[in-house]
């Protein structure tokens, strides 16, 4: 019994030593690993001609987790986000029950390499790519609580550029633009009925761009806060055209390691 207690105490001392050492080390090294938790407001408009001639619109609250490695020359990032929105048709319809439940999941990995700087390193440019995976599932309710399903799965390799502007010691503004070079798309037939034919497509068929404007403020050695405005648009013409536009306004709390 005494032996067991001694071993536990030894473990606790060891863990505290490591933690103190880590803290000590962090006094001298800039933080590179950023873990973020995001939420905010997402406004979505979607027109899926495979399902309906009408545009469905609505807003909701997305949840997003992120990890970023902020090296001097290289940036790595991983994002996971989820949203569930209830959309209504843009037209005033005689029935009250037309609605669309829109589920979206996004998982992305990005890599950017330092390219150049300007204005005495106040402005930095990074160039790289993003492997982006997007799943959209839409349940369209027309009548009697019966619904049909539509949606798509898109996995794409995007080219991406980041422009960072140092406003002050604690504040930075960044702009990121990305668009796909090649995409793997699964768009099941309407109502999920029929054979599914995956397609590999390029920019001439699948159009998407993502814009992000980010204001990052350093709160402390361990925390930053980011205000993000993001606009995403995509369209794909098969088997009938789908168009999707989204505005995000996001607040992110960043924990720096």
């Amino acid at each position, binding site marked *: 019994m005494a032996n067991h207690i001694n071993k536990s105490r030894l473990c606790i001392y060891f863990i505290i030593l490591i933690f103190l050492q880590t803290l000590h080390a962090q006094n001298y090294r800039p933080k590179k690993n950023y873990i973020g938790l995001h939420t905010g*407001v997402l*406004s*979505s*408009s*979607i*027109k899926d001609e495979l*399902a*309906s*001639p*009408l*545009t469905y*619109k609505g807003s909701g609250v997305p949840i997003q987790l992120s990890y970023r490695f902020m090296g001097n020359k290289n940036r790595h990032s991983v994002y996971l986000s989820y949203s569930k929105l209830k959309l209504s*048709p*843009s*037209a005033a*319809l*005689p*029935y009250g029950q*037309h609605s669309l439940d829109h589920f979206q999941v996004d998982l992305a990995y990005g890599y950017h390499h330092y390219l150049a700087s300007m204005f005495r390193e106040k402005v930095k440019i990074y160039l790289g790519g993003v492997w982006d995976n997007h799943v959209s599932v839409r349940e*369209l309710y*027309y*009548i009697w609580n*019966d619904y*049909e399903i539509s949606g798509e799965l898109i996995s794409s390799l995007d080219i991406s550029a980041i422009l960072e502007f140092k*406003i*002050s010691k604690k*504040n930075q*503004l960044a702009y990121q633009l990305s668009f796909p070079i090649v995409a793997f798309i699964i768009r099941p*037939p*309407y*109502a999920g*009925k*029929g*054979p599914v034919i995956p397609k590999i497509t390029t920019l001439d068929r699948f159009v998407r761009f993502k814009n992000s*404007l980010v*204001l990052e*403020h350093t709160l402390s050695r361990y925390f930053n806060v980011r*205000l*993000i*405005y993001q*606009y995403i*648009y995509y*369209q794909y013409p098969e088997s009938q055209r789908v*168009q999707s*536009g*989204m*505005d*995000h*306004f996001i607040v992110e709390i960043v924990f720096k390691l």
Partner: protein
Amino acid sequence: MRKVRFISLSLVLMIFCSCQGLLIEPDPENTPEKNFEILWREFDRYYSYFVYKNIDWYEIYNQYRPLVSTQTSDEELFTILSSMLDNLQDGHVNLYTPHWIYAYEAWWRDYPANFDLDIIRRNYLTSGYTIAGGGIFTYGRLTDEIGYIQISSFVGPEEAFLEIYTILEEFRDLRGLVVDIRDNSGGSTKNSDLIAARFADQKRLYAYVKWRNGPEHDDLTEPLELVIEPSEEWKYVKPVALLTNRRVFSAAEDFVLVMRAFPHVTVIGDITGGGAGNPILRELPNGWVYRLSRWQELTPEMEMYEGIGLVPDVLVGILDEDLAAGKDTILETAITTLEFFFN
């Protein structure tokens, strides 16, 4: 600091600019002509039976389009669209509006009913009956050896259809079962397959389907197999009589196709309604909702039964005088058939 505040405020205000809809094409106008055009076009694009039914959809457009103008009222538009859709003679084609519903009913309306549940409850389930699954099932014993299960519909939540497990436990030791799906107009094939799987002696091919998959009316996939897998629970593989009439339609006809693939099942009654479309719901700019058939379904012998129906193993009907006298000839034929199998 002022710069940072200005940027923060700009970011917040951007969410109100509703940029998300900027690049999206505007909705079609909600006019009688546009609603007509869209309905005709969506049928042209998705409906699966034009060639099979020998329908010239372009001629029908020429016939009905001149009747629609900007002055056409909702009621007039409904009448015109209903009349146009009636050319398809398809029980899976419907038009739903806030005030009126179009449905093609000739597939059952012009035929004898061949069913009255009250007669069965009164004169055949004399030792009592139980209603289960929120009214989906009525079951009891016809004789000491034969059970009776009526399935009124395949519409409903899966939980309601799981009641079949309890019912079959009660009938597990009986020598034969009558499964009565007369007047069952369909619902979800998930529900019908859940029940059919409890009767499956082995994995069976029961039908083929061809999906409409292109802009031309004869753009259809190659025949795709539909198979039924046996349930993981115990299966009832003693003699079963499956009762049908003209109102058996859609998912209920799928159920007939599955069940008749099993060697221990005999289908008795009238020819079914002939509804093999697997319809989808869609909407018009004015909010009206419509249904249309998306596939063609064929028997394992590659025969189409849309508009024709499935012919039972034993074709029998109920005379009006028998029905009036409280006699269900179809049910009595089923009992006789099962007793023949017992011996």
